[in-house]
């Protein structure tokens, strides 16, 4: 499927139009929910860190440090991707699946258009901007932690000092590598389930559920493999 979607391409201007549409639908439309989730989960993570670091011998800077590490290494790239498997993945599967059951894909094929290139390729390209969403998630997660600590009474200086402590830029690189791998999975696995589905309207719903299931599992397994390869 991926090979065919990259060959026999449609006209450039049509593809550009499709890519911009997909950037809007898949990336820009996801920013709001990712921002809300990241902000509040960042806050929760920092409160839980504070709760577990009550020992007066432990510095309060550790709260900021631990929150930063959790958000950058795991929460933003992996758990936001699982959430995106639900939001973006089900959108992709249901939109392509509906085109399949209403014969719109057959119509493209009869016209002599490479339907995989027209439908799937722009999604893969659009998802190259997915790291932008994850960057927002990282930033807002850490800001959410800061706000929660300020409201809890932990000095913000300690939190800010903590998020700057022992910073290793390789962790950001690792996080973005993971994000790009997940972006590819988020674009292709749901497309596969939508494109090759059979049946009627009810089966579109079933295909979306199946697509979420497999996308999540693949993301979790790849998360382990990439982490093993890059951090162990």
């Amino acid at each position: 499927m991926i090979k065919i979607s990259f060959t026999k391409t449609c006209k450039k201007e049509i593809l550009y139009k499709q890519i911009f549409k997909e950037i809007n639908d898949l990336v820009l439309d996801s920013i709001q929910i990712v921002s809300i989730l990241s902000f509040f989960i960042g806050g929760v993570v920092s409160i839980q860190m504070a709760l577990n670091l009550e020992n007066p011998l432990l510095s309060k800077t550790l709260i900021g440090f631990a929150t930063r590490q959790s958000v950058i290494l795991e929460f933003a790239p992996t758990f936001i991707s699982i959430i995106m498997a639900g939001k973006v993945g089900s959108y992709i599967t249901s939109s392509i699946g509906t085109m399949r059951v209403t014969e719109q894909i057959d119509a493209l094929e009869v016209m002599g258009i490479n339907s995989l290139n027209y439908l799937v390729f722009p999604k893969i390209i659009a998802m190259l901007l997915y790291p932008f969403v994850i960057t927002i998630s990282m930033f807002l997660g850490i800001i959410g932690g800061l706000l929660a600590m300020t409201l809890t009474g932990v000095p913000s200086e300690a939190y800010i000092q903590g998020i700057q402590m022992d910073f290793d830029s390789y962790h950001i690189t690792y996080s973005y590598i993971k994000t790009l791998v997940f972006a590819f999975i988020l674009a292709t696995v749901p497309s596969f389930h939508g494109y090759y589905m059979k049946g009627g309207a009810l089966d579109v719903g079933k295909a979306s559920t199946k697509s979420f299931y497999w996308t999540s599992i693949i993301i979790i397994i790849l998360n382990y493999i990439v982490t093993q390869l890059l951090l162990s």
Partner: protein
Amino acid sequence: MIQVKNIYKSFDNSDILKEIDTAFNRGQTNLIIGQSGSGKTVLLKCLLGLYDVDSGEIIYDGISSKNMNHDDKLEISRKMGMVFQGSALFDSMNVLENVRFPLDMLTTIQENEKNEKAMKVIERVNLKDAIKKLPSELSGGMQKRVAIARAIVMNPKYLFCDEPNSGLDPKTAIVIDQLIQEITKEYNITTIINSHDMNSVIEIGENIVFLKEGYKIWQGTNKEILNSGNDEVEDFVYSSELLKKLKK
């Protein structure tokens, strides 16, 4: 003209089409009829090139489907227009965009020329006032007319229609049938319609191919079908009690 020479097609060891040997004429409305499961849709999809036949050949105005490579198939498919049973219009596009779509995708002509061509066929199917409407805002009959306009905008040599009047009331169905027949004559194209609607058969069936269990049982015109002398055809044509009484 499309000639079908002794084609066979099977799925999972089940023979769907057997010994189909026929011809579909240019400038005529050719109908493939038969009960559900008789192989009509599979034959149409073979003619469209969506399915490869197991044996035999399909000849499109002298060009055989045998040994066709992907580019040859693409070349033939660009001479085809298709009206799907459910219209298959693109939900996110309005009427004008739907009709313009093949021109946008497959031609390099100027924008104003594309609009001119699209408007010409939209006017032909009497939808000039609905160009900004989305498919969801159209009635079933209007959707079918948009699908016909989209199918003919590239000036195809072959027009395929899969149950073009399914889900339509009898009056609208006749309007759609007549529109297809008029377009067939005007554009001098080979039109093949897959149908089980006897109104269509009587109204526009200039060349009718009757299929049963994958075999071609009978071929003739709408004038001949009412007195075909073939029990299986008569069983299909006079399937309702009312028609049986009328025949008597």
